[in-house]
């Protein structure tokens, strides 16, 4: 599938001085008033057209952060600004692909109906069907429109989930460990599908926030990698990837720059772990 990256121009990662699409400031979340904080003081920007990867260990608050970004719940502290306006309910411009694709597709709906699901009333039925079929074609799923999700392989189901997220032409796509439960080959294929979505889907670019615990995946895909540290989740560091696009599985992964970036991220993680250990031993 790496031929999907063939005829693209190199894209510069930092969109310069333009206003960020998403501005996250001093974001904190507690699930219960007395409980421990899942997130604390998280601050970062997402630039227009950027592909930002979030990495961090299990339980550090990655899902919590995405749920705050798409307005599924409200922060306990701080704000999420979308184009300068606070996010208080799920915005139309943002779409989310859930961590567990097998639970996020409606088993009683065909693939086509699943993809049509987010389309709002006020459009004709014919238009909705046409729209969903267009996205399915774009994702290479035209053959399975009338099947049910449970009749498809895991990789296909995840494509359907991505197609559904794209059907209402979001500006921002949030993905929560989307490829965690597929095999390595399918994962590589889906990574390239995502790169194509980022670069050009139906003639436009999509800003992407991609959560993963796979550092190699983060480096391969992203313009910038944000490292989160656990308990409570905060930003431990940010690493610019600076690899040229198009990215190609074998070539990109074997370049020296790839190794540099990967090491830089590991460096951030181990520094942060040392700090945590020092901090806890000081407390004692």
């Amino acid at each position, binding site marked *: 599938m790496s031929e999907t990256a063939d005829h693209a121009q190199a894209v510069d990662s930092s969109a310069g001085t333009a206003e960020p699409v998403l501005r996250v400031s001093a974001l904190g979340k507690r699930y219960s008033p007395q409980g421990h904080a899942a997130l604390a003081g998280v601050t970062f920007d997402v630039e227009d057209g950027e592909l930002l990867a979030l990495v961090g260990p299990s339980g550090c608050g990655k899902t919590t952060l995405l749920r705050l970004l*798409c307005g599924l719940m409200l922060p306990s502290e701080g704000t999420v600004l979308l184009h300068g306006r606070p996010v208080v309910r*799920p915005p139309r411009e943002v779409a989310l692909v859930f961590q567990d694709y097998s639970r996020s597709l409606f088993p*009683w709906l065909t693939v086509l109906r699943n993809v049509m699901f987010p389309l709002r009333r006020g459009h004709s039925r014919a238009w909705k069907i046409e729209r969903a079929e267009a996205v399915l074609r774009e994702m290479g799923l035209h053959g399975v429109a009338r099947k049910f999700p449970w009749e498809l392989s895991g990789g296909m189901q995840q494509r359907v989930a991505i197609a559904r997220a794209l059907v209402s032409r979001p500006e921002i796509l949030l993905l929560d460990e989307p490829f965690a439960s597929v095999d390595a080959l399918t994962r590589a294929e889906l990574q390239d599908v995502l790169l194509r979505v980022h670069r050009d889907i139906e003639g436009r670019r999509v800003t992407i926030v991609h959560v993963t615990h796979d550092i190699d995946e983060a480096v391969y895909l992203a313009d910038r990698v944000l490292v989160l540290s656990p308990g409570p989740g905060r930003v431990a560091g940010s690493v610019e990837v600076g690899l040229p696009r198009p990215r190609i599985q074998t070539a990109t992964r074997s370049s020296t720059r790839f190794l540099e970036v990967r090491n830089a991220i590991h460096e951030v993680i181990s520094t942060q772990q040392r700090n945590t250990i020092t901090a806890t031993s000081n407390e004692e």
Partner: protein
Amino acid sequence: MTVRGVLRLARRANVVGWLFVVFLAALAEAGIQLFELHDSVSPPSETLPALVEGLSSGELSGALRTTLGAYLGGLAIAIVVGVALGIVIGSSRLLLDASFVVLEFLRPIPAVALIPLAFLFFGTGVEMRRYIVAYAAVWPILVNTLYGVRGSDRILHEVALASGVSRLGRLVRVTLPSALPSIATGIRVSASIGLLVAVTAEFVFGSGGIGAYMQRQQLAFQLPEMYAAVLLTAVLGYTVNVALRLAERRIVHWTGEKRVRWP
């Protein structure tokens, strides 16, 4: 047709099951003749003609129609009320807590115990029996709907929420379909309870329907006629169950049920 084809067809129509029924009937016939139990049991060879005679003379078929009226009417009320209440109560923590005690208090009351009350309100006719059936049949449907609603996946609700679907829209597009498999189970349980209660109520009041027919034949010591009515009730229950299974397999097609063979 190949041997395997014949076998497959036989399995689908459950020929074995029906052969076993015939075998049991023959066994009963032989037993009754052998031990001379004619006084208390009617053998199949007399029951079946009595059934045919009752249906063709119109007496038993009229009773069947009366029973069906109360039974199916009551079941329909139970389905509408049970599903609607279950979805509304189940999708709100507050309503669930508020109604829990009342529901658990009412549920153990046997429907037959309400006959005197229903008698005061609706008399002894079909209408009274319809409400008794509805009362008895509503509980399995309500409880199963509640379970189905509570068990619906949070992620699916979030998918709808993130797509901007309204609260009512989520009820119809997420909660209801999620609960459907469990609602179907509730309806099947209710269908057999409802028939039981319908026939019992007729038997108690003797004012019409299969139950009353049964009671009249019993008082007159017309054993074959009485057993014919029992047999008819069984056939009715079986038919309703098969019909519901078929409907369920079509409507709730996404659950594992379809991959499990059921005769």
